[in-house]
């Protein structure tokens, strides 16, 4: 975690009031070029939104390297668990990471954690390169630099993502096994249980709120 002092240095906000932790997510467009001092070994999911923002705004290769060293091995492991051999998984993992660099402007921390977003890119790569199929995607909601993600929404979403991760880790072995099988591609859609038993109500409501806000801004 960043301390408040780190946050102040990054955001350049007034020192009168310590900024909410959510302010960490806002380093975009303030024109400051202060480099944050990052000397952590333990990553906290919440920091990734900021790292991705640095990649987007400053094409910051050091930030990219941090993201890479955390996620590239996981993407490769994920693809290998999905039945991909090591060399193709390596190739795809590199392509996924390159895609992150290119699509950094499309990351919306009020709708997905960094891990979630990277998962979707890795999954699409798997469909494209390994299953060799097209992936129909829903229409995008208009999303551009003129629309800042809501800070409170983004922070709440990160917290919900962490809670969900913890809840999945604590699922009974049998149930967790079925969910992993579904995501690693070992189950067809008709083999997936109708009741997943996953506690998704809260995170869904959060995302729904963020979508409603976005729709409202579009009007």
């Amino acid at each position, binding site marked *: 975690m960043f301390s408040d002092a780190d946050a102040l240095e990054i955001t350049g906000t007034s020192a009168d009031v310590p900024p909410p932790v959510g302010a960490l997510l806002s380093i975009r467009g303030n024109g400051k070029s202060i480099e944050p001092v990052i000397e952590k070994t333990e990553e906290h999911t919440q920091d990734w939104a900021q790292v991705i923002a640095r990649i987007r705004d400053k094409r910051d290769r050091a930030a990219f390297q941090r993201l890479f060293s955390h996620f590239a091995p*996981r993407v490769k492991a994920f693809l290998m668990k999905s039945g991909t051999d090591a060399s193709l998984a390596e190739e795809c993992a590199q392509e996924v990471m390159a895609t992150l660099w290119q699509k950094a*402007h499309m990351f919306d921390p009020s709708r997905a954690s960094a*891990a979630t977003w990277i*998962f979707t890119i890795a999954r699409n790569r798997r469909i494209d390169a390994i299953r060799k199929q097209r992936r129909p995607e*829903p229409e*995008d909601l208009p999303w551009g630099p003129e629309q800042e993600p809501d800070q409170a929404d983004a922070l709440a979403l990160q917290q919900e*993502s962490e809670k969900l991760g913890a809840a999945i880790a604590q699922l009974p072995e049998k149930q967790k096994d079925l969910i992993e099988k579904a995501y690693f591609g070992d189950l067809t859609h008709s083999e*997936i249980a109708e009741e997943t038993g996953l506690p998704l109500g809260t995170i869904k409501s959060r995302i*729904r709120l963020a979508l409603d806000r976005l729709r409202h801004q579009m009007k």
Partner: protein
Amino acid sequence: MTDTIKHHLSDKLLMAYSAGTLPEAFSLAVAAHISMCDECRARLASFDAVGGALMEECSDADLSETAFEDTLALIDAVDMTAPATAAPAIGTLPRPVQDYIGGDLDAVKWKSVGMGVKQAILPTSREATARLLYIPAGAAVPDHGHRGTELTLVLQGAFADEVDRFGPGDIEIADEDLDHTPVAEVGADCICLAVTDAPLRFRGFIPRIAQPFLRI
């Protein structure tokens, strides 16, 4: 639109779409419904979060020693253009459907299947079939059973069958037990996207007349 939808995607369809294991035609129906429905868009995002959590938990695989440099080289090779985000669709049909037609409704190449009903098969992988159905107001699609799962998404107009009424954005999920007779509502012609995982049968082997209705 999004608040009037009553019939949504099931959890198992959303999970399979999130996992990336649905046949392409099914993915098209899911993507089209989500384009019209923020509730399912949010539900999908929560299933994606499950995928993110599972990936986060994967123990690290060893990368090649030059993996990072190789990735930078990849970026340098293609980083000229920032990819544009897909704009929302202009027209009647949701964007993912337009992508398969190569245009909006006026670009659909309909083929008559009798009694005023028309269809157009969309080019997806063969494990499942996607087609647009055009049902004139007040007309019925003759009773058809089907093997496997059939999804019917209303894009325009409305139909009713033995189960319920389905309006724009509603999706009916029917398994093989359901024999239904969708009837388009009076007032507007009904256009649906129908997908089924029963394979295309008989094509080219049996005289046309013997093909089952709608060639599914």
